[in-house]
C-alpha cells in the first residue's frame, strides 16, 4: 500500500477513461484556469528525465538488470511515448509499444510536471490523478528512480 498526499483544496474538474476503461480524475486548484501541456512539452519532460537518468552512473549500475518497457500516455491530449530501459540505459521514442511492463497514464500537465521533477509521482498517484499499470514492485522502482534523480 503506498499512499499519497490528497490535496483536499483541489477541485475535481473532470475525468477521462483510460485504456482499460477506468476513470482518471483531474483536479484543479481553486481560481486556477485549467491548462493542458502539449505533446512537445511531455516529450521535453521525458527527454530531461532520460538525460538525467543516463547521466547518473549510480542509477545505471543499479538498473542494469532491470529491463523494462514503460509506456506513457496522456489522457487529455493525443500523446504516447515509450521509455525503454535496457542494460541500465534509458531510451525514448514517440508512440506506444506492444506489451509494456508498465503503463503510466495521467493528464498532460501532471505527466509533464512529474517527468520534469516538479512534483513527486506519489502525490498524483494517491489522489487518483495518476494511474500506473504494472507490478507493484515495478511501480515502486519507478518511484525510487524518480526520487534518486530529483530528490525529495
Amino acid at each position, binding site marked *: *500500500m*503506498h*499512499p*499519497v*498526499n*490528497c490535496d*483536499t483544496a483541489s477541485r475535481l474538474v473532470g*475525468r477521462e*477513461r483510460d*485504456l*482499460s*476503461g*477506468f*476513470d482518471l480524475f483531474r483536479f484543479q486548484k481553486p481560481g486556477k484556469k485549467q*491548462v493542458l501541456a502539449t505533446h512537445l*512539452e511531455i516529450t*521535453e*519532460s521525458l527527454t*530531461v528525465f532520460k538525460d538525467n537518468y543516463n547521466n547518473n552512473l*549510480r542509477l545505471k549500475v*543499479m538498473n542494469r538488470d532491470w529491463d523494462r*518497457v514503460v*509506456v506513457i500516455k496522456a489522457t487529455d491530449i493525443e500523446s504516447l511515448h515509450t521509455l525503454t530501459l535496457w542494460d541500465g540505459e534509458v531510451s525514448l521514442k514517440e508512440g*506506444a*509499444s*506492444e*506489451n*509494456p*511492463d508498465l*503503463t503510466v497514464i495521467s493528464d498532460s500537465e501532471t505527466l*509533464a*510536471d512529474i517527468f*520534469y*521533477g*516538479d512534483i*513527486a509521482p*506519489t*502525490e498524483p*498517484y*494517491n*489522489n*487518483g490523478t495518476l*494511474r*500506473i*499499470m*504494472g*507490478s*507493484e*514492485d515495478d*511501480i*515502486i*522502482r519507478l*518511484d*525510487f528512480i524518480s*526520487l*534518486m534523480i*530529483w530528490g*525529495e
Partner: protein
Amino acid sequence: MQLKRVLTLRTVVATSAGLTLASSSFVAAVQVANYVLGDTAWIAILIGGALCFLAAACFSELNGLLPTAAGIRLYFSRAFNDQVSLTVSILYMAIVIVGVVGAESYVLSRVLGEVFPAVPPYFWIVLLLLLATGMNIRGMKIAGVFQDIITYSLIASMFLISLIAFNKIGFQLNTPFSPGGASGLIQAVAVGVFLFVGFEWVTPLAEEVTQIRQISRGMMIALGILSVAYAVFTVAMTAVVPKEALAASAAPQMVFARQVLGSAGAAWMVAVSLAASVTTFNAGLISVSRFMYASAREHVLPAVFCRVSVRFFTPWVSIVTLFFVGLAVACVTLLTHRYLVLVKLAAAMESIVYALVGLAVISLRRKMPGQARPYLVKGGDVIPVSTAAVFAVLAAAVLAELRVLMVLLTAFLACLVYVNTAVPYLKKKYDARKPAARRRPPRVTEEAGRK
C-alpha cells in the same frame, strides 16, 4: 497494449488466502471455540467468513472505482477527508505490525520451543525477525508460483490432518446447532474475524490483473476456502483435544497434531506453522515498510524513511526500523504473555476498518455518482450499510474487554496527535526546503509570443 506480466486467478486466491493464514490463526480459532458450546465453533467461523464476504464486496466496489496500490489510504481520503484517512491508515499499519509480529512471533516461538526445548524462545524470535528483515532488504518476495505452492499446501495440510483426526476418533458432531447464548456467539464471531485478517491486502494487485473483477472473485474464493478450512480444522482440534487443554497452550495446533499423529504430526505442524508465519511476516513487513516509504515521500513521516538501498532498491531504513519495533514488541509479548490482547486488538482494528469501508462505499456513491464501477455491489445501500453496522457491533464486542479498549484508544489518540502536529510540521519543513523555481520552463503563450 497488453501488459507483459499478468496474474492468474489462482495466484490472486493464493495471495489473499496466504496473507491471512498465520500460526496465530490457530490460537484465534481456539478462542472462537471457547466462546461457544460443544462442536459449534464452525457456526461462528462460517458466520465470520460470511460477514467478511460483505466487506469483500465493499472492497471490490472501491477497488474497481479506484484501482490503486494505495488502498484504504485513497478510499478514505476520497470518501471522508485526508485527516481521517491518514489517522486510520497509520493506526491500522501500527496495529498490524504490533499485532502480527507480537502474536505471530510468540506463537511460533512456542511451536519451535516444543521441538527444541533447550533453545530459548528469544532465539527463535530474533532469528525469525532477522530472516524476514534480510528477505525484505534483499527485496525477496514470496509471490507467484511459490506463493501458490505454500498456500495450497497449507490448506491441504489443514484438511488432511483434520480428516485423519476425524477418522481416528470416529467423529460425530454432538449438538452441532446449539452454540449457546447470543453474547458468546457474537464474541466468537468478533474474534473469528481475526482468522480472516488480511484477505483484502490483495487489492494492491489491482494493477497486475487483466480484469479488475479477478480481484473480487479471488477474495471471495479465498474467503470461502478459508472459512471451510478453519471450520473443519477447529472442529477437529476441539474433537480430539479438550478445549481447556487447547486454550492453555500458545501453540494449540501442536497439541492437536501430536495427539493425532504423534511426533510425525508435530513435525508436520512445525512445517505448517513455519510456512504460515514466514509468509505472514514477509508480507506484513513488505506492506508496512512500503507504507512507511510512501508516507515519507508525501512528507507524512520523516524523510529518513524514504532512504533506499542502492543495491537492492528497497527502503532499508523503514525495514530496519521495523526490525527493532518488531523485536521490542516481541520481547514485551514474551515477557508479559499477553499475546491474546494483540489478537483481539487486531480483530477490533480490522472490524473498524471494515465498518469504515462500508461507509466509504456509501459516501463515494454520493460523491462520485456517475463514475464507472466495474464491480457494483447490488441491492443499493443494503450491503454497505449492513457491513458498517455489523462490523461496528463486532468491534464493540471485542472492545468490551477494557485492556483492549485502552490500548486501542491510546494508539488512536497518539495517531491523532501525530497527524495534527507532526504532519503539518513535516510538510512545512519540506515546503521550506523545496526549490523556489520550477524545473519545467515557463509556458510561452501565443499572446506573449506575439509581443
